[in-house]
């Protein structure tokens, strides 16, 4: 009989707290439709690893031997060596259409401006954490899960789990976090600024050469980021070359879905109560939110600054789309524009800026690695 309840006796209040956290993530995924592909596996995995003596993760036996768990094995095979996020980048690259950006490349400058939050948070986080952890926490502001994983891993951050959870959660919270920041920094008149869109035809040759050129430039400037940029651009090259349509489709759907399933539940292997329930985690979540807000503010304020010199004004809201959360951020800006003026169509501009945010956040990650590795 004892065998039925001996494990139950090892229950700890911290496990219960983690079950609640797992439950909240599952609730947000199903009820609120917030990044369900990631939050649901993370939520379920959180419950899975927070059972006393869970066989899903490595357990140290009384004999001193380690009993291997499937999730820890998956973590070592796919996240500790950055394989999962990089492969996921092939799928993301295959999903992205750089057309709106290539037809108006000047928009890319907003992608650069919106990385301000990352670097400012780096300074702020360094008050509380050592520089490698601070840099890993700051990259949460990129709203780019794979980049956050790669940077935190390469910098050997001990806070990988809360960084991953914050990065993916804030991506899901774009519709909640960005609008109030944008509204706070812009006037109604500014939000109503209309921007004409002259859809210029982009040649196939440009679309093919673009991913190759970006890889070379990023590789020369920030060699540590070349795997990130390279896998993203490889996925895009598969999409644009025109002769690998079935591979492109596989990368966009099957490959991305497969990796996402494993990525979410594997991230959860790091969500054990001992690692997660401490003051540092709360601080990391707070700093991540700060980075995200300041990235948004950086883009908006830079657009307002440019407007001081431009005859044809830019709607400063498009600056906020310079983060990596694609396409949510671009769509939010478009919707906010429509809410102020039903004839104000900002979608092509905001999506262009959003795509540039994807590139700029990867470059920011690469620069951070170059500085601190």
């Amino acid at each position: 009989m004892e065998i039925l309840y001996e494990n139950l006796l090892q229950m700890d209040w911290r496990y219960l707290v983690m079950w609640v956290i797992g439950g909240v993530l599952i609730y947000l995924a199903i009820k609120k439709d917030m990044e369900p592909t990631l939050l649901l596996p993370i939520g379920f995995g959180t419950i899975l690893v927070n059972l006393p003596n869970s066989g899903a993760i490595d357990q140290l036996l009384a004999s001193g031997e380690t009993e291997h768990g499937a999730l820890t094995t998956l973590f070592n095979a796919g996240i500790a060596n950055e394989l999962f996020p990089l492969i996921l980048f092939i799928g993301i690259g295959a999903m992205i259409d750089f057309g709106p950006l290539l037809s108006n490349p000047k928009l890319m400058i907003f992608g650069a401006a919106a990385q301000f939050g990352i670097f400012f948070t780096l300074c702020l986080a360094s008050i509380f954490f050592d520089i490698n952890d601070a840099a890993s926490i700051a990259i949460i502001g990129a709203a780019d899960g794979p980049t956050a994983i790669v940077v935190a891993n390469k910098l050997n951050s001990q806070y990988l789990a809360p960084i991953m959870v914050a990065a993916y959660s804030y991506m899901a919270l774009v519709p909640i976090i960005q609008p109030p920041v944008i509204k706070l920094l812009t006037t109604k008149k500014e939000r109503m600024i209309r921007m004409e869109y002259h859809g210029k035809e982009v040649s196939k040759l440009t679309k093919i050469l673009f991913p190759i050129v970006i890889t070379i430039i990023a590789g020369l400037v920030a060699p540590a980021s070349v795997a990130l940029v390279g896998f993203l651009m490889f996925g895009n090259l598969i999409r644009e070359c025109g002769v690998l349509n079935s591979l492109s489709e596989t990368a966009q759907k099957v490959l991305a879905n497969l990796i996402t399933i494993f990525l979410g539940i594997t991230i959860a292997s790091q969500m054990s109560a001992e690692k997660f329930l401490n003051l540092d985690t709360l601080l990391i979540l707070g700093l991540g939110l700060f980075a995200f807000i300041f990235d948004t503010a950086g883009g908006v304020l830079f657009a307002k600054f440019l407007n001081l010199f431009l005859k044809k004004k830019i709607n400063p809201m498009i600056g906020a789309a310079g983060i990596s959360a694609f396409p949510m951020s671009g769509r939010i800006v478009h919707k906010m524009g429509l809410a102020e003026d039903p004839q104000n169509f900002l979608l092509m501009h905001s999506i262009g800026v959003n795509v540039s945010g994807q590139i700029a956040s990867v470059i920011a990650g690469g620069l951070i690695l170059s500085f601190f590795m």
Partner: protein
Amino acid sequence: MNLNFAAFVANLYYMGIGMLCIFVVIAVIILSVFVLDKISGAIAKKAAEKEENGQN
């Protein structure tokens, strides 16, 4: 937890250099796109002319 306020000031350097680097890289990418556009435009024009001459 030790609070190290001096680190904030010391790391402002990385903020400055990081933002500068990002703007420079993005500016280079923008220039490259303009160059790519010119080159591909010229190639497309040449191909169109060749086709036109072939038809004549």
